């Protein structure tokens, strides 16, 4: 029998290698674009790329949690918008102080997530349908609440700072990292920690791996599932804050279609739609790959229709390369 400890070591270094290699796809893109255009590898452009990743990145983190449980969340985009709208309602119409507005976004997200979780866990509605329904409901509600007009945050000084200010830049002027990106990293860090180190995270993987086995082990599966959807919802609330702050407004019609980008980032990052396996780091890299591709092709002034074609092709190639290295399992 092989020595157990050797086995473990191979396993860990194998996993680390995997991440490093997905990262390598990203690096390859960065190098390629840098060589192709001098305008690409510049601080402002790098910050633009990161800023462009922030919203999709946060949504993708939310989607990752749900996908690891073996579910799917189609409502992330419209939930983001709905949270932005609710923040607008309390801040601009209600005139409450900023922190309460932040709370409104997170609370709305968590509540809606809890509702989705209830549909999935208690009512046994397939996640695809439950979150599709929620997506449509929220899409309509955002329009109804706002009357179809954006809510502007002009009366809330400091609101744009949430995403566009730069705490890091104040300390390190050479690194004008927008707060939006800082928030993405914080959210991702927290989600990583939860997945790796807490009971909630453990049940994410367990549910995705074999829900029936978890149930047979005497775990209250429904409650944990609802908690996970609620957490994902709250994270969508963060995305709502970010996008509202970036646009200085809550745009009620925005959001549909964003779920596809978020899920794409998750899957490119190596998380399996079948559930049970996945990492937040992978998701971040997936989201960055999408942003870098989009930005780089634009910087190269590629015609928009060709941008689409090339993006499609590169996504396939990137995942294939990743697949080859993993040795074709799964």
């Amino acid at each position: 029998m092989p020595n157990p400890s050797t086995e473990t070591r191979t396993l860990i270094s194998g996993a680390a290698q995997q991440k490093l290699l997905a990262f390598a796809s990203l690096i390859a893109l960065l190098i390629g674009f840098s060589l192709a255009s001098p305008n690409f590898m510049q601080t402002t452009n790098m910050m633009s790329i990161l800023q462009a990743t922030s919203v999709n990145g946060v949504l993708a983190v939310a989607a990752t949690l749900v996908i690891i449980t073996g579910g799917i969340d189609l409502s992330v985009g419209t939930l983001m918008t709905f949270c932005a709208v609710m923040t607008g309602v309390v801040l601009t119409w209600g005139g409450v102080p900023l922190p309460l507005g932040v709370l409104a976004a997170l609370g709305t997200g968590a509540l809606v997530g809890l509702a989705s979780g209830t549909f999935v866990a208690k009512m046994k509605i397939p996640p695809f349908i439950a979150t599709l329904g929620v997506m449509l409901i929220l899409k309509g509600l955002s329009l109804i609440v706002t009357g179809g007009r954006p809510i502007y945050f002009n009366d809330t000084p400091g609101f744009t700072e949430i995403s566009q200010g730069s705490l890091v830049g104040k300390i390190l002027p050479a690194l004008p990292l927008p707060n939006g990106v800082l928030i993405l990293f914080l959210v991702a860090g927290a989600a990583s920690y939860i997945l790796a180190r807490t009971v909630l995270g453990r049940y994410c993987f367990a549910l995705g791996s074999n829900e029936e086995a978890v149930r047979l082990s005497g775990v209250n599966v429904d409650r944990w599932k609802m908690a996970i959807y609620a957490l994902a919802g709250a994270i969508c609330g963060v995305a709502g804050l970010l996008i509202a702050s970036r646009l200085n407004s809550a745009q009620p019609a925005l959001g549909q279609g964003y779920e596809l980008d978020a899920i794409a980032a998750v899957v490119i990052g190596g998380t399996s739609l079948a559930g049970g396996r996945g990492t937040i780091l992978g998701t971040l890299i997936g989201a960055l790959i999408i942003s870098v591709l989009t930005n780089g092709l634009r910087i190269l002034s590629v015609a928009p229709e060709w941008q689409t074609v090339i993006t499609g092709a590169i996504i396939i190639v990137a995942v294939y390369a990743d697949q080859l290295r993993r040795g074709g399992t799964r």
Partner: protein
Amino acid sequence: AAQERPYIPLISKGFQHQFWQAVKAGADKAAAEFNVEVTFEGPDNETQVDRQIDMLAAALAKKPAAIGFAALDSQAAIPLLRQARSAGIPVVAFDSGVESDIPVATASTDNIAAAALAADKMAELIGGSGKVALVVHDQTSRTGIDRRDGFVNRIREAHPDIQIVAVEYGGGDHLRSTEITKTLLQANPDLKGIFGANEGSAVGVVNGVREMKANVVIVGYDSGRAQTDAIRSGLMAGAITQNPVGIGYETVKAALAASRGETVEAKIDTGFYWYDAKNIDDPEISAVLYD
């Protein structure tokens, strides 16, 4: 070597639809004429405000001579527009305006006035009374709102005997607009007229009316082969056309002038026209129509 020709990116509200392709054609025409390099792009649909902002950021990173910009939401773009101003990059607004003093010029159609003209024509064609409905492409975009409100308000103010029974939104998708039209006709058998507020909506209305074999007055917006055919065949009474080619052309022209420090006219009205079976072949009209 690449920097020889001035570079002017146009960030529009879309690029897949025919209207935008016509704007692009005008821009390309100006590009060839004035020897500038022009790129043209926009998000997939008119809700994606943040995507457009990302495009604007990428365009700025390329250090262009000037920028053409059709804002989905003026306010959201203001930080980047300020950045452009401080970098000395002039901005020309096109399609609908940008609510800001930063753009040096605006090349646009007055959509509210154009839709009001459509309303007057509709009133005339249905004899001043009866039920009408609207199929609009979008509930929240500037053009969608302006054309809807321009039409609806004009009817309310000037044609009190006309009743607007429905405003539906089809995303400018031909098929969805077709289905919407059919249900409108089903729900309102006595409907006298339908206004389709952009190319996809108008063509959808034509299809729907044709499939239902209904007899209603159709007023459209923009052009394209399907609309011009429908007008020639009498199925569509007439339509408003803007001058998208002119918009693209004038935008590039003004942007180039501004980049050279010349003063440009602040408001470039590219105009709009009513066309129907009678005047469709007039040179003045056929010049602004596109297939």
